């Protein structure tokens, strides 16, 4: 490798290369049309082209590549959920991250440094015990630790003994980690494009032609195309896109805000979060402290930010680490998240025969980029929903078989 690099460096006549080819003209028809060029859509395109021999695929992205929630998320990767179907699904998601850089030949900078969630109340401790037992049962690395255990794992935490937010203990999830979000999307995009997938940026889906129970055509701002199968992975706009196809989804839009500080020397080598303070912190490989929390308190389909939400995040961060008080904020932003009633995604079949859903990813879908892409590709290629996805079907709501992950997701993602 080092020699190769040296040779490359000394070679004359370098040819410029594109990781992602420029947007081509639209073909008349594709075997599979994927709506949304975020991590999920790109991963599905990669798995279709690499493992199922389906290469006549178009990914339609209305903006620039992976500029939606994939670009905005705080990159928590974990599998410490509450219900067995979720834990099993997200566990597969984490395991794909463990091998993603090799799989793609693209460095996604996965750092499996463990996640510590703090409890500042008895209620939180109780729910941690339940989650730890469920997690162990389903084979993820998770345990409850007491206050001393918290101090050992993260000596920088303000324990606030005797104070209003005394740390009672925590949930230690050794499988938790973080990855470079853009690299994940670019890696999948680059390899999918090499396999023949067409990635169309600035191509907005504006409607569908439906005949009977099938989608026949997809309308875009650049023309109409025929589609054998359609996969919807449109992030915050999932409810809206489904509506265009005549499908109603149990989805509401909420903004989710986050921010980063100026870079600091590395000191925080775990992911730290608090379920009572609705705040979490992670230090990026650039040294910035990424700060996130719960969604805005009311429904909205906008990426505007608010001062009260930023102040709440800063308050939580200062409670956990008061020594950050002089640190400056560098950037802040928001994304539109597609929230479901049970804080679990909607994957699999839709009322239309050749239209597949990868939706309802809300505030928690980055960690599932690989597994959702892989399993949705399998679904589209075989026209059969694999067992691991079945509990996430749209019709779970009419069967009252919800997968309630609110407690394990709302503040931690």
């Amino acid at each position, binding site marked *: 490798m080092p020699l190769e690099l040296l040779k490359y460096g000394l070679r004359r006549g370098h040819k410029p290369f594109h990781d992602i080819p420029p947007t081509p003209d639209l073909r008349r028809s594709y075997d599979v049309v994927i709506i949304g060029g975020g991590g999920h859509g790109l991963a599905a395109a990669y798995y279709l082209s690499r493992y199922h021999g389906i290469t006549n695929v178009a990914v339609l992205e209305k903006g620039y590549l992976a500029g939606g929630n994939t670009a905005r998320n705080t990159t928590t990767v974990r599998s410490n959920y509450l219900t067995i179907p979720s834990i099993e699904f997200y566990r597969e998601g984490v395991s794909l991250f463990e091998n993603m850089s090799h799989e793609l030949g693209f460095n996604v900078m996965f750092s499996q440094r463990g996640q510590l969630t703090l409890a500042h109340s008895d209620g939180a401790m109780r729910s941690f015990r339940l989650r730890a037992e469920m997690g162990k049962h389903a084979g993820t690395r998770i345990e409850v630790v007491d206050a001393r255990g918290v101090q050992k794992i993260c000596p920088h935490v303000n324990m606030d003994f005797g104070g209003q937010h005394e740390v009672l203990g925590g949930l230690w999830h050794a499988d938790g980690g973080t990855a470079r979000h853009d690299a994940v999307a670019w890696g999948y995009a680059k390899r999918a494009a090499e396999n023949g997938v067409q990635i169309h940026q600035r191509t907005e889906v504006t409607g569908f032609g439906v005949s009977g129970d099938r989608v026949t055509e997809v309308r875009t701002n650049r023309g109409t195309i025929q589609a054998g199968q359609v996969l919807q992975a449109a992030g915050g706009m999932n*409810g*809206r896109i489904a509506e265009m196809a005549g499908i*109603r*989804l*149990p*989805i*509401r*839009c909420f903004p989710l805000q986050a921010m980063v500080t100026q870079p600091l020397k590395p000191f925080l080598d775990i992911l730290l979060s608090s379920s009572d303070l609705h705040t979490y912190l992670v230090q990026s490989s650039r040294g910035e402290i990424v700060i996130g929390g719960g969604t805005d*308190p*009311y*429904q*909205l*389909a*906008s990426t*505007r930010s*608010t*001062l*009260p939400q930023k102040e709440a995040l800063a308050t939580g961060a200062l409670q956990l680490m008061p020594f950050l008080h002089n640190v400056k904020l560098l950037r802040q932003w928001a994304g539109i998240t597609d929230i479901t*009633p049970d804080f679990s995604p909607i994957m699999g079949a839709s009322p239309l025969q050749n239209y597949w859903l990868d939706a309802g990813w809300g505030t928690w879908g980055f960690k599932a980029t690989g597994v959702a892409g892989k399993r949705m590709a399998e679904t589209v290629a075989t026209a059969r929903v694999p067992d691991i996805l079945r509990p996430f079907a749209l019709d779970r*709501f*009419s069967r009252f078989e919800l997968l309630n992950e609110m407690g394990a997701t709302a503040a931690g993602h």
Partner: protein
Amino acid sequence: MKIMTCPVNGPRNISEFQWLGPVHDTAEATDADLLNRLFFAPNPMGVLREWWRHTPSNTVFIAERDLTTDEILRSYLKGSDADRTASPA
């Protein structure tokens, strides 16, 4: 800070209010309606009629808000003239 007008207390900081969700038509109640009400909440790219509460005074009222711009268009008490002339949610 963003301002919400409480029909009783006038314009106040939005942090004094609690969002309670969309106003439902309570007339019909088939099984399908119930399912919709529980899980399939409206999510329009436009105006939504929704319940809000001014927390300090416990005033519950209705506001019309644009879900794409966050603009609050009107707010009024249930049963007021403004409510009677409002278009159904």
